[in-house]
């Protein structure tokens, strides 16, 4: 029986983490909703199983998505994750093939060299030793990048790296110690026996030339085992919990589980799946335009994990969803933030160690000012009958050219429509939801729903992406909901709207709530291509920028919003287009104040291109055509 006391720390750690992972998974599964449980069962034993395995291989081991964003960062993650995985795999095989028996306990593979110091002298054994040395070298190269990244984050091309807390530091140090201590331990043993391949062999014989290799090896095997054991035991308290959690997340997501609008086990799983890689920080405009670097999703999730009061973080966000798109783990960051906003203020409780291993489910009891409804002053809605109802939205009333263009388009198309908020309507409710006040939002949603349903309309058209998103997601309307760009696209396709081609060079800014928020990318571009020369930008579709005017952020100042807007406008108008087109009144207003380039909504461009000259209101008074400068 091969045994030495130094393996004890490793064994304790290993069995602890295995049992812990199982227990935690069971707890998460238990906390899933009934439907989600079913989904996961079907997903686990169904077709998505293969998909999950593939994703685990591609993302958790190879880190393909990180590679795509940043090669050096990708290599770092891959060399550590995939390298370690292969080292364990080949180590296990090594112990199986060359060891004294088959189906060994894990420690025999991990400490193979210690128990088989003579192994690897020649032939197949030597080739195998070479492979093991090579894998160790790959991991060490990744480790060097990781250490450099921690010390000088710019070197790996990351502008920001996340800040750590003490326990993370201990875990990080133990993680960093694992491979160097293995290298030195193996090298000393190899040096003492004259074995080992290019790495451990060479280093070993050099060390042995001036040190007592045999005696030196033993403490380093202890160190190796202690590092592993410490790392495993601390893992649940640190961000490295993401390693086991991500596996669960991949299975859950591929089974069709989404965040939805209720916090639960899936939110928890996602929160623990964040590796704090910091890619969300680089994607965030608050970071690269205004230099705010402490509110990004990685910090939000870290704060939630550490049971901190994250209210200020949760509300300081444009809710643009750029980080969701970039997150290599695919965490639904913006929906989680929405849930967090609704949770209100949480009190910070210093938790016992046990509680930190098995945290309570967060419970929130926000105090209401009063239990009476906030909007009982709203009148009962009077029905209007129409096939199509047009809801301009609050913001559109501040951009009369969009509103007038839409009226012109609706008139020109011959559609029987009713303008339901012509004299000002009731807010769609999304701004309240963004402020975490879902209950109050529901009152507005009910009011508008009644108004829309009573109209008997089959189609609801809106000019505001903010309204569009909430109409689709949170209203229970059994009718077609269209953003005006989709509606215009339909009119063009049906032939009910005849347009001239305008030779203008146009770039398109995708509004967050329309693009990433609702997945409407193609229709606006199709319409623009139909009437103008649409140019590409570096920020098209999923990679679009936020205009800065977002209602999602309640914390930044107008000045900071302006900086974001100016930065976004400058990036979008890099190639000097004639028009910076968008499809949101708020984006239009924000961008127009930030650039010299003409900013126009797609509706305005289309209205100008309508082939019906009789719709144009003639300027009858020549006096008014003279727009002259004032003098004193």
């Amino acid at each position, binding site marked *: 029986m091969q045994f030495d006391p130094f393996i004890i720390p490793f064994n304790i750690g290993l069995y602890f983490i295995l049992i812990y992972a199982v227990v935690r998974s069971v707890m998460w599964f238990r906390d899933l909703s009934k439907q989600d449980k079913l989904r996961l069962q079907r997903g686990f034993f169904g077709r998505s199983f293969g998909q999950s395995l593939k994703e685990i291989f591609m993302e958790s081991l190879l880190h393909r998505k990180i590679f795509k964003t940043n090669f050096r960062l990708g290599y770092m993650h891959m060399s550590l994750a995939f390298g370690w995985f292969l080292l364990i795999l080949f180590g296990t095989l090594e112990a199986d093939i060359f060891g004294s028996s088959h189906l060994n306990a894990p420690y025999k593979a991990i400490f193979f060299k210690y128990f088989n110091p003579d192994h690897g002298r020649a032939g197949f054994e030597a080739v195998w030793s070479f492979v093991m040395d090579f894998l160790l070298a790959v991991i060490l190269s990744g480790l060097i990048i990781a250490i450099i990244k921690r010390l000088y984050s710019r070197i790996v091309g990351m502008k920001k790296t996340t800040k750590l807390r003490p326990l993370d530091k201990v875990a990080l140090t133990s993680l960093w110690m694992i491979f160097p201590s293995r290298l030195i331990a193996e090298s000393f043993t190899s040096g003492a026996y004259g074995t080992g391949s290019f790495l451990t062999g060479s280093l070993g014989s050099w060390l042995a030339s001036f040190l007592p290799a045999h005696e030196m090896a033993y403490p380093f095997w202890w160190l190796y085992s202690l590092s592993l054991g410490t790392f495993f035991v601390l893992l649940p308290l640190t961000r490295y919990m993401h390693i086991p959690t991500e596996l669960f997340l991949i299975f859950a997501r591929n089974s069709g589980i989404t965040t939805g609008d209720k916090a639960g086990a899936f939110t928890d799983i996602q929160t623990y799946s964040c590796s704090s890689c910091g890619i969300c920080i680089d994607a965030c405009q608050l970071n690269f335009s205004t230099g705010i670097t402490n509110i990004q999703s990685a910090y939000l999730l870290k704060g939630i994990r550490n049971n901190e009061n994250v209210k200020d973080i949760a*509300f300081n966000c444009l809710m643009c969803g750029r980080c969701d798109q970039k997150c290599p783990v695919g965490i639904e960051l913006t929906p989680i933030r929405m849930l967090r906003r609704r949770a209100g*203020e949480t009190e910070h409780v210093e938790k016992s160690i046990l509680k930190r291993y098995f945290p309570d489910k967060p419970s929130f009891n*926000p*105090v*209401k*000012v*009063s239990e009476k409804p*906030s*909007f009982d*002053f*709203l*009148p009962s809605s009077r029905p209007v009958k129409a096939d199509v109802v047009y809801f301009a939205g*609050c*913001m559109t*009333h*501040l951009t009369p050219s969009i509103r007038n263009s839409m009226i012109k388009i609706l008139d020109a198309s011959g559609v029987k429509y009713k303008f339901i908020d012509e*004299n*000002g*309507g*009731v*807010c769609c*409710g999304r*701004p*309240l939801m*963004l*402020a975490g*006040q879902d209950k*109050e939002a529901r009152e*507005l949603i009910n009011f508008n729903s009644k108004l829309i349903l009573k109209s008997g309309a089959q189609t609801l058209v809106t000019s505001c992406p903010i309204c569009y998103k909430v109409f689709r997601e949170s209203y229970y309307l059994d009718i077609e909901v269209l953003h005006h760009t989709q509606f215009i696209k339909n009119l063009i396709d049906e032939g009910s709207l005849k347009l001239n081609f305008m030779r203008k060079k146009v770039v398109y800014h995708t509004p967050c709530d329309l693009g990433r928020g609702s997945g409407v990318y193609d229709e606006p571009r199709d319409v623009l291509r139909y009437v103008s020369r649409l140019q590409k930008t570096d920020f098209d579709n999923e990679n679009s920028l936020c205009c800065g*005017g977002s*209602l999602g952020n*309640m*914390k930044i*100042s*107008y*000045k900071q919003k302006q900086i974001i807007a100016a930065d976004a406008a400058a990036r979008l108008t890099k190639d000097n287009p004639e028009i910076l087109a968008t499809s949101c009144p*708020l984006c239009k*207003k924000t961008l127009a104040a930030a650039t010299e380039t003409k900013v126009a909504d797609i509706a305005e461009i289309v209205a100008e291109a309508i082939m019906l000259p009789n719709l144009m209101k003639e300027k009858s008074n020549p006096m008014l055509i003279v727009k002259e400068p004032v003098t004193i």
Partner: protein
Amino acid sequence: MDKFGFAISQQRQIDFEANRRDIAEYISEKEPSFRVCIECGCCAATCTTGNFTPFSLRELLILLKRGENDKVRDNINKCMLCGKCTLVCPRGVNTRNVISLAREAFQDRIKNAV
């Protein structure tokens, strides 16, 4: 004084010393743009809620600053947070955050009272 048939009514006056202006101070600290309001009324003119019911953000802000909190507490929840006022404010007051902070402050007071 009584012989003239008039008495200075205490209710008529804003008792600047006695009134609690801690809510206004709390908001000013967290959202400094609250301080730069010049009472132009543009927010109240564009207000979605104001279209349906007596509700003037301008009035509520000045009342907060004077410590006349009762009317603010009774009305602040009528706001739909639609953001039009933020968009038209010539002084760049972050009105939505001011309202959120005011609601929060009143909530905390209720919590403390309980």
